Every structure is written in C-alpha cells, then in structure tokens.
C-alpha cells in the first residue's frame, strides 16, 4: 500500500485530496494507494469571504462548510491534529501522541496563522478582517463609526491575500459614501516599503485610485508599537500616526510543526519553487501559504500548486518519474469599490497587468465566491 498523507484542510489540502482521488481512482479502489487528509478543523473555511463581512455583505457562516461534504469518498478523512512530523521515519504523530501514521509521500498544507500579539498593543488597539471573530468585531465597529480617522495599516508582510489591504480602503470609501458619511471620515493607507504594494503595477494602480478617492498613503511605514489608550501608532522609522479606527493586516507566522520538523526556520517550508518538494527532507511537499515560494499567499496559488503536486504524487505512486511543475501562476481579483473590480494574473518573475475596473468583473468575483465550493471539490 502506497500511503499519501495530506496535513491541512484548507484550499490546498482539499483540492489536492480530491484531485488525487480522481487521478488515482483505480489504484485506491484496488487497495494499492491510500489518500488520507488530516485536518484539525471539521469545517473547511473559504477565507476571502471575511473581506465582505465588515460591510454586511456576507456572514461568517457563509465562509464554512463541513469538510466531509467536500472531499471525495475515496479520501480517508481524519479529523485530528498532527503534532509531530518525523521525516527520518516517514511518520506523523496525532494529538494523543500515541497514534502514529506512516507515509510514503507527505504534503504539508497547514496555511498561515495570524500573530497580532507580535506587535505590542496591536491586538488591543487594532481590528482585522482575516478571521471570523475579527471580521464580526470590525463589522460592529464600522456600523457605529460615523466620523474620525480610519487607518488601514499593513503591519505584517508576508500575509494572506496581498490584494485585500488595497481592496479594503477602496470598499470602505465607497461604503461610507453610500451612507453619506465619507466627508466626516479621513482614510489613510500605510505600507511598509517605499510604494503602496509589493507588486509595482498594483502599487501604481492603487496609488492613482487612492489619490482620486482622497485616501492618504504613507509608505516606509513599519509599525513598531500601537498605543491603544492614546490611539497612536509608532513606527520603526520614528513616525507617529493617530487613529480613531485602526484596521490592521496583522503579522503572520507559519507553523511550529514546520520549525520542529526542521523543514523551515520561520515556520514556512523551504521548497523548490517549481516541484514544491521540501529542500530539507525527502518525500515531503508543501503547498499553499505554508510553502515558502516567491509569490502571493493566495487561494489561487494553493489551487494551482495542488494541481502540480497531485500530478507529481500520482506519478510516483505509479512508479513513474514526476514531470509536472508549478510556474508561479497566481490569479487575484481586486475589488475597487462596492460594485466594481479588476483582476490580475501572473507567474514567477512576471509583473501583472492591471485592467480597468468594471462591474462585470465585480459580478464575476461574486460568482466565483459562490462557485468556490466546486473548486474545493476539485471540479473547477
């Protein structure tokens, strides 16, 4: 029996499990291959939904579905936490520490974790929309926010969905205008480097739009500390900025599992960017946010990586030489307000072209959000 273990039930892990169930259908049914998906959360969560929660357009329940409804019946689903990866013995330990699972090929798809406490005062002083509780708290805060200074600050890089920090100020600008409150709210966007976004074309596009919509931009702005009582941000560069409502993109971290297994110093797995094979161990792959590759931590990346890794794993399970590779393909929608959007598409080393925002692209984005569950099933 050739055993494939996938740790993590987000986009990467779920798409991969379903693709493998399809590609290795006959081998699984013949008992020659096992595809096991291990995830601590019985729900699959589609995180991009949270961007719409503060504006009352979605609820946190819209973001989740039981994972057992999404995975192919040929996949062995284990709802449990993996607490140790032993790459010398090719085995995993589960939370009870006595259950061990052997693998022939392992894929880590454990995602990224929020770490607001890495910056003093941020957890107390700032809001975010990167998780269910944060998105709901921000929704309640925004509903009562009628005047003052709203600051959207990108505190941590890398972070999930690099488009979202740019989208939020554009959406909140539009949302406040619709409610006749925009004139009483000042909006500032901050970014750590010397332009408004890591991708130059997105930075140029956003800077023009921000200027058009009276959104101030502060660059070279690295938050050192937040004083929740004084409602003040202090930066590494020695600047200060007062806020009334702080929406932050918090620092992210990888996984302790990765550090403990010696697969990557910072919790992100060191991998070959094309094969997604771990550089520090044999028979181990990483996909999605936990893989340290030079592109965005975005669902589309996890999706395309899962396709390449499914082909590589299936080839090896059949005793063939894997040839499939991931070229860095990334696709991101960018909301430019409450009813228009654009999208970008690029591969490793490519600078994306940003199209003019339009209503049809916004509706395509909302349509994709609804059909996402087909993506998770490996169908789209």
């Amino acid at each position: 029996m050739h055993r494939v273990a996938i740790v993590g039930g987000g986009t990467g892990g779920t798409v991969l499990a379903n693709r493998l169930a399809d590609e290795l259908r006959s081998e699984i049914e013949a008992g020659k291959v096992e595809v096991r998906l291990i995830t601590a959360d019985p729900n699959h969560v589609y995180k991009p939904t949270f961007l719409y929660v503060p504006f009352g357009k979605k609820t946190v329940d819209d973001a989740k579905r039981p994972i057992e409804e999404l995975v192919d019946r040929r996949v062995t689903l284990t709802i449990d936490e993996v607490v140790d990866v032993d790459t010398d013995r090719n085995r995993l330990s589960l939370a009870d520490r006595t259950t061990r699972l052997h693998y022939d090929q392992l894929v880590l798809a454990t995602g990224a974790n929020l770490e607001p406490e890495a910056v003093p005062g941020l957890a107390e002083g700032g809001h975010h929309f990167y998780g269910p509780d944060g998105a709901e708290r921000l929704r309640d805060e925004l509903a009562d926010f009628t005047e003052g200074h709203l600051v959207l600050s990108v505190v941590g890089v890398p972070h999930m969905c690099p488009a979202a920090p740019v989208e939020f100020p554009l959406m909140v600008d539009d949302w406040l205008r619709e409610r006749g409150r925009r004139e009483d709210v000042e909006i500032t966007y901050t970014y750590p480097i010397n332009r408004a976004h890591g991708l130059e074309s997105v930075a140029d596009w956003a800077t023009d739009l921000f200027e058009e919509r009276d959104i101030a931009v502060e660059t070279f702005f690295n938050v050192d500390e937040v004083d929740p009582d004084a409602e003040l941000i202090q930066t590494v560069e020695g600047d200060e900025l007062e806020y009334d409502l702080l929406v932050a993109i918090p620092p992210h971290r990888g996984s302790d599992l990765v550090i403990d297994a010696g697969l990557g110093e910072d919790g992100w797995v060191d991998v070959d960017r094309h094969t997604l094979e771990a550089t520090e161990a044999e028979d181990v792959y990483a996909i999605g946010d936990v893989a340290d590759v030079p592109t965005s931590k975005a669902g589309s990346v996890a999706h395309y990586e899962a396709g390449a890794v499914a082909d590589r794993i299936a080839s090896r399970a059949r005793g063939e030489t894997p040839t499939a590779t991931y070229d860095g393909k990334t696709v991101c929608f960018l909301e430019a307000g409450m009813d228009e959007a654009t999208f970008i598409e690029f591969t490793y080393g490519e600078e994306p072209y940003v199209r003019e925002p339009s209503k049809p692209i916004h509706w395509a984005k909302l349509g994709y959000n609804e059909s996402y569950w087909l993506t998770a099933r490996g169908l789209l």
Partner: protein
Amino acid sequence: MTDTDDPDVTIDSKDASCPGPLMALIGKVKTLDAGTVVELQTTARNSTTDVPEWLEEAGHELLEIEERDEYWSIYLEVN
C-alpha cells in the same frame, strides 16, 4: 578585517521576490542592538535601491553593496 568581512548577522533572502528581502531585513533589524553589522543576501535587483532608501528613512547606516556571481550582499550597521 573590516566589518563587512565578518557580519554579525546574515539574512539569506536569495530567490525571494520584492519586497521579501526588505521585509525580512526590517523584521530582523527590529530585534537587533545598535552597532550590529548585518549582511542581506538578495537576488532581487530592486533591493539594491529599496534597501538603501529604507536605511536612510529609518536611520541605519549602509556600509557596502557587493555584487557577487549570483546575488548581491548588502551590508549595513544598525543604529
């Protein structure tokens, strides 16, 4: 021996695309004492302009930028 021959801290950001190397540097510098000499290794050409700009903004000292066969070494001293 000059400071740049024997840096106190080396950050390997080779293969990370912009702004990865600069962000790695900023994250590390926040944890270091004044006087620490850092070598940032990067393959992103933008780093050779972005990093000096940030160092000036944040008040740290650029010591040297050395072009090697496949990457750049940017040396700086934390102030």
